[in-house]
Every structure is written in structure tokens, then in C-alpha cells.
């Protein structure tokens, strides 16, 4: 289980300081799928970056399987990282390597396994994402949906207990999104993998999630089952799930008054 307690993060200095996460609290249950939704700049990717250890919080705690991990470094941090796999938004495959070598990379880097064992494991992982037979292709020869599936095969290469998904369905056609959704559900249900999905694809989040957390300006505005989110009476939640340009979530992200800013430019 993952527990995040009072997580706070800001960027910038002085009057340019922007709080991107403000008292973020969440529990992500073992074997369940938790989606973090929210618009661009809402702070959802910042949560993910804290979970994978890329950011250190200003304050707050992150507990993974009963261990506080937010301040770990070196070997201790690597030990925690072995528990999870990450599926990056872009896929982050190595273009010069074949599919087989991309999926085998974590096994070759982090285990002492024999090469013939690794080749069988790669075949098993590719079978799980429905792409057995693509071993010898290079990323440039794959569609966007296939790249995501290979990225998923690589994320589960070392049988992680936790998988973090960063925008798994961004830029995909509806059928490919359905395929990725099904893979995330299968991995979670059949293998007991704890999944944390950062996404702004509302239909996908509604389909796959046990729990949805919605962020707005670094704060949690709603948290609950897909049904609870759908029925939320918070106008910000309704605006987001309906994709309406008008509502409490403003079109402009500027913090200052437009007229004031133009007037103050007069010295130029």
C-alpha cells in the first residue's frame, strides 16, 4: 500500500514562488487502481514524480509498504525503486534497440539471470501485452499504441508489485486506449499489482479505476469511486469531466490582472 501524507511542494523563489502541491493526502490500496486526474498544471505529474523519487517534498511523507521513502537516497532508494515499474508517457523506448532488447534491458541491468532465461521472460512479457512476434522490430517500426504496449512490457519486466502509469493513453486512438485500459485492469486484477495512473482521459479513468483523485491547483477537490466522482456536486469536478470551457476552472492561468499588467508595461 502507498500512503501519502501532507505532501507539499513549491517551485520558484520569493514572489515568483508557486505552490504546486498543497497538503496532498492519499492512500493507494494494494492491488487496486488509483487514478489521479486534473488539468494541465494541476499537480498530478508532480505527485507521480514524488512517488518515483524524482522530487523531494518540501514537507510531508510518502510511505510504500510501511517504509517512509521520500528522503531515501543511494542504495536504500534503489531498493524501493525495484518494487515498482514505470510506464512513461512517451514510452521512453531506446530507438536504437529492438523491442526484445528494450524489454530485456532491466533484466540485464538488474539481475544475474542467464541470457536464455531472459529471452524466455521477454517472450512471456510480450505475450502478456499481445505483441509476441514483435521481438526484432525497432521502435520506429511500431505504432503509437504498440510503443505504449512495449513500454508496459518493459515496466513489468522485473515483476514489480507497483506500476506507475504516466498518461498511458495520451495521443492514442479509442481502440488503442481500450487495449491499454484492459492491460492495466488485467495486470492489477490477475497479478495483484498496485496501479497508480496519472491521466486526463476521463472515460479511461472511469473505466479502470477503483478510486479517482481529482486535483485542481495542487489541491484535492474530489476523491472517491468513479460513481462518486460522476455524481459529485462540485462544479469544478463536473466542468472537468464534461470538458466544458466555461465554469469555475478558468480559461486563463495568469495570476495577475490583464489590464494592470498591460498598464505596467508603459515604462518599456
Amino acid at each position, binding site marked *: 500500500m502507498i500512503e501519502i501524507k501532507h505532501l507539499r511542494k513549491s517551485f520558484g523563489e520569493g514572489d515568483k514562488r508557486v505552490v504546486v502541491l498543497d497538503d496532498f493526502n492519499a492512500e493507494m490500496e494494494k492491488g487496486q487502481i488509483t487514478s489521479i486526474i486534473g488539468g494541465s498544471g494541476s499537480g498530478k505529474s508532480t505527485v507521480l514524480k514524488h512517488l518515483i523519487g524524482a522530487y523531494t517534498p518540501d514537507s510531508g511523507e510518502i510511505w510504500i509498504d510501511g517504509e517512509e521513502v521520500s528522503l531515501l537516497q543511494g542504495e536504500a532508494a534503489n531498493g524501493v525503486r525495484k518494487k515498482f515499474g514505470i510506464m512513461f508517457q512517451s514510452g521512453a523506448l531506446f530507438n536504437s534497440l529492438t523491442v526484445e532488447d528494450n524489454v530485456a534491458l532491466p533484466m540485464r541491468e538488474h*539481475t*544475474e539471470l*542467464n541470457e536464455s*532465461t531472459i529471452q524466455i*521472460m521477454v517472450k512471456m512479457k510480450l505475450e502478456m501485452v499481445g505483441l509476441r512476434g514483435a521481438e526484432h522490430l525497432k521502435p520506429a517500426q511500431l505504432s503509437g499504441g504498440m510503443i505504449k504496449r512495449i513500454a508496459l512490457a518493459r515496466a513489468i519486466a522485473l*515483476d514489480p508489485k507497483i506500476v506507475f502509469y504516466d498518461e498511458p493513453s495520451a495521443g492514442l486512438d479509442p481502440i488503442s486506449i481500450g487495449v491499454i485500459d484492459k492491460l492495466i485492469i488485467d495486470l492489477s486484477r490477475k497479478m495483484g499489482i498496485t496501479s497508480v495512473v496519472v491521466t486526463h482521459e476521463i472515460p479511461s479513468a472511469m473505466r479502470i479505476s477503483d478510486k479517482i483523485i481529482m486535483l485542481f491547483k495542487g489541491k484535492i477537490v474530489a476523491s472517491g469511486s468513479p460513481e462518486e466522482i460522476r455524481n459529485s456536486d462540485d462544479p469544478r469536478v463536473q466542468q472537468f469531466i464534461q470538458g466544458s470551457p466555461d465554469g469555475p476552472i478558468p480559461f486563463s492561468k495568469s495570476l495577475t490582472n490583464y489590464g494592470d499588467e498591460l498598464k505596467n508595461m508603459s515604462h518599456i
Partner: protein
Amino acid sequence: MSIELKLEHLAENTVTVSVNGDIDMSSSTKVRDILAPLFKENNKAIIVDLSGVSYIDSSGIATLVEGLQWSHSSQNKFRLVSLTPGVKDVFEIARLLTVFEVFDTKEQALVE
């Protein structure tokens, strides 16, 4: 959890390997090291007793698939016995349960 492997030579050129502990990324190579030479000896059947294994990961399954490959090329029988529920689940998820000869008990594996 560390792994223990026990080798037992029975009559009629049959050998059993009893595994105790988790078969994972750190212990699969030990299982492989004990299995590999058995296929080069004059063994008719190699039986792997998994009753002491509560967890197996994909590296463990892949190692047993290697055993299957060796048995095909060397014409030995390669049988798995006493799979615990957790181990059976992993075989099923990998859709490899039907690929192996699996028996409930060692006695059954020896008779057939």
C-alpha cells in the same frame, strides 16, 4: 527468503529436485544450475517438487520453461509436482500450465 534445493536419485534413472523457498530473480539461477546438468546425465525422468514454493515469479517460470526445452532436446521426461495455489496462479496467468506435465503428487508423477 533463501532457497533450498534437494536432489534425490531414485530407481529407474529418475531424479527428483525438491525446492524449498521462493523462486525469484535472485534464486532462479540456483534452480537453473541444479537442473541443467541433469539433462546431460542418463536420467529417464526429472521431477521437480514445488510443494515448498509459495511464490514464483516470471524468472522462475522461465527457468522451468528452459527445463522443458532441455527435456525436449534430450528426450527426458520433465514433470512438475505439488504446485501450491499461489504458484499455480502464476502458471495460469502466464498461460503455461497446460504446457507442462503437472501432477498433484510425486507418487502420481512416478507411476505414469
